[in-house]
């Protein structure tokens, strides 16, 4: 009989669980959501020493089974076999931070008390050694009554031994070890006392060595320096997104252009060739070129997370967030929303206070997600001159930064208003562990970046691909009579006329109106639909070669372009975000509210921008 072979990683947050998971499973990972909830389910294949595969699940970090957040609730249910649709893991692998045993052993005892086949990974033992701790895994193993394997996930030390221990524990599970009786129940103070004794017994020697992170914290958490350092860091991040990505983006653009030329030269003209060059390549290609910028943005966010700085950023921001009725905990979901609002909204699960969480969900779409980046980048490159305004500070980067700030500022004001109106409630709390600093490892960074890039490319390959083809068809048919422009004659053109009537007062032209509708599916589609529109619009074959950027520069006035930027700061233009908000708030009420207020803000601010720019004579 074949069994579903599974093991689950459990442990406190910041025990290095995810690094260990990456090291054990490598690229053989699958990320999905647990059915019914939006907590991420990370599972991967671990190859046992026997060569057989075993499914390894990485559970959300927990401090206790006495769940305080939805994340911890998932861990508790999976470990107890109470999660619908999830099999009871046969082996529990407890991950401990070797340098923080006294704390981590409290939860470990709770897990071991279940009486299930268990293995302990004494992780980050190198950091413990750096801190001057010498540990005795054998003593710990004896005290806990389960095997203890010292590991350094990031340097792949102890992994083979751990896999072997898991395999051995799994055999016990198969032999009916799973019906072992739960051991005696201890209260929290009793477990804490026991943890202290065990930790003391496991530490062979401890030298008071200077610790790197206290020194770093003195600077990074300095009452006056902390805030400017964080802001400089964020500013550098946004400058880098613009500056470093350029050569890669140019290369990709050239590549797409070359493929397009090759298609034109190789295949006979006709419907299919036009669909490929004007529809697919013009549309999808114009989005794919933004991959480098998105990768750079995610790289910064992942490094901040992996290094331990992200929690500090939350600490630094708590005071400011408290002013608008939120806590520093909202800062992390909001910062991840810069990459994409979907994981951002999902990350609000770590916020225990419901009003706090609702407010954070409602303002998350105002954070400038990476899907806006293609739109911003295109318009900025087209209408903002590439001049420097100071050493290392370009005007284009500055405008981009201003757009991000506009989104943040908008979110803060909206949060303040929401906290006083629809999400009234007492001030929220802020309690958070500040993990020790760690050098981020390239391998983990690589896996994280690859997963994010893949999600983006998949969007480009599915939603954007489909939207582009549909739009191209709508733009191409019916064919124009001689003397009539193709866009005016097409179905899309007629639809756009209706939308245009609504957005004309705020300075939008027909092509923009045309782009707004498919961009509801995903913001970056705006770029591909502009590309497709202009590709179809130019009857002249030579004109088609003109880059989209140049088209925009030639056809849009500056006030119009600025209004378009302002629109994208606020407009709710992503169906997935609305869907996630619906799932997270359990109904249509809040997502509808969100969509309504965002459209209102977008319309007002785009209009204001347009009229001010016109009045200023731009």
């Amino acid at each position: 009989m074949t069994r579903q072979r599974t093991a689950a990683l459990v442990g406190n947050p910041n025990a290095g669980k995810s690094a260990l998971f990456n090291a054990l499973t490598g690229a053989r990972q699958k990320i999905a959501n647990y059915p019914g909830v939006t907590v991420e389910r990370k599972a991967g294949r671990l190859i046992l020493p026997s060569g057989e595969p075993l499914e390894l699940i990485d559970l959300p970090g927990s401090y206790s089974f006495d769940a305080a957040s939805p994340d911890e609730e998932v861990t508790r249910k999976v470990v107890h076999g109470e999660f619908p649709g999830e099999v009871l893991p046969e082996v529990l692998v407890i991950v401990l931070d070797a340098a923080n045993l006294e704390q981590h052993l409290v939860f470990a005892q709770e897990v071991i008390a279940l009486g299930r086949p268990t293995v302990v990974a004494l992780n980050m033992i190198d950091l413990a050694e750096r801190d001057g701790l010498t540990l005795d895994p054998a003593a710990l193993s004896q005290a806990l009554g389960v095997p203890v394997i010292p590991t350094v996930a990031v340097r792949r030390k102890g992994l083979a031994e751990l896999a072997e221990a898991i395999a051995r524990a799994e055999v016990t599970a198969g032999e009916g070890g799973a019906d072992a009786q739960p051991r005696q129940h201890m209260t929290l103070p009793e477990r804490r006392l026991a943890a202290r004794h065990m930790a003391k017994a496991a530490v062979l020697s401890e030298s008071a060595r200077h610790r790197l992170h206290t020194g770093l914290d003195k600077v990074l958490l300095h009452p006056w320096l902390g805030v400017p350092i964080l802001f400089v860091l964020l500013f550098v991040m946004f400058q880098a997104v613009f500056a470093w990505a350029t050569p890669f983006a140019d290369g990709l653009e050239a590549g797409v252009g070359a493929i397009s030329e090759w298609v034109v030269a190789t295949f006979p003209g006709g419907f299919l060739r036009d669909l490929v060059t004007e529809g697919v390549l013009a549309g999808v290609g114009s989005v794919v070129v933004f991959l480098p910028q998105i990768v750079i943005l995610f790289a910064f966010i992942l490094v901040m997370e992996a290094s331990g700085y992200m929690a500090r950023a939350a600490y630094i921001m708590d005071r400011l967030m408290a002013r608008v009725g939120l806590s520093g905990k909202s800062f992390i979901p909001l910062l991840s929303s810069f990459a994409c609002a979907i994981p951002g909204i999902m990350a609000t699960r770590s916020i225990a206070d419901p009003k706090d969480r609702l407010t954070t969900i409602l303002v998350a779409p105002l954070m400038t997600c990476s899907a806006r980046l293609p739109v911003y980048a295109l318009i900025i490159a087209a209408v903002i001159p590439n001049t420097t305004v100071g050493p290392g500070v370009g005007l284009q980067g500055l405008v981009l930064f201003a757009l991000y700030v506009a989104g943040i500022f908008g979110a803060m004001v909206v949060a303040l208003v929401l906290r006083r109106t629809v999400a009234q409630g007492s001030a929220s709390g802020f309690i958070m562990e500040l993990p020790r600093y760690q050098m981020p490892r390239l391998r983990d960074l690589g896996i994280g970046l690859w997963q994010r890039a893949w999600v983006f490319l998949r969007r480009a390959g599915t939603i954007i691909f489909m939207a582009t083809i549909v739009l191209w068809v709508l733009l191409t048919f019916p064919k124009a009579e001689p003397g009539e422009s193709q866009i005016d004659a097409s179905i899309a053109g007629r639809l756009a006329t209706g939308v245009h009537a609504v957005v004309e007062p705020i300075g939008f032209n027909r092509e923009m109106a045309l782009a707004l509708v498919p961009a509801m599916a995903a913001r970056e589609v705006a770029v591909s639909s502009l590309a497709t529109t202009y590709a179809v619009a130019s009857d002249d074959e030579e004109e088609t070669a003109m880059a989209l950027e140049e088209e925009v520069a030639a056809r849009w006035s500056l006030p119009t372009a600025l209004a378009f930027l302002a629109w994208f700061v606020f407009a709710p233009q992503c169906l997935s975000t609305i869907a996630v908000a619906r799932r997270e708030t359990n109904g249509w009420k809040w997502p509808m509210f969100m969509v309504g207020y965002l459209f209102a803000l977008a319309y007002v601010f785009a209009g204001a921008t347009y009229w001010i720019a016109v009045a200023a004579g731009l």
Partner: protein
Amino acid sequence: MTLDQLDHGQRATVVSVDWASLAPEDGKRLRAMGLDEGASVAVAHRGMFGGADPLAVTVGRMTVALRRAHAAAMEVERA
């Protein structure tokens, strides 16, 4: 003396916690992190903008950020 009044770097022991003054979720979280009666604590960092909020407190080998309101609920005794 309560935890928020403790001098920077001074070690102290938590002697009592006014759990009733804390939101139940906050109390649960503090306890899970080991900020409980009997814990040995020290204030490592004080908040930004001179408001001394939030605080970063070391408990064991862990650093925990918490608000002044939480710290004020914890009666401490200098070690």
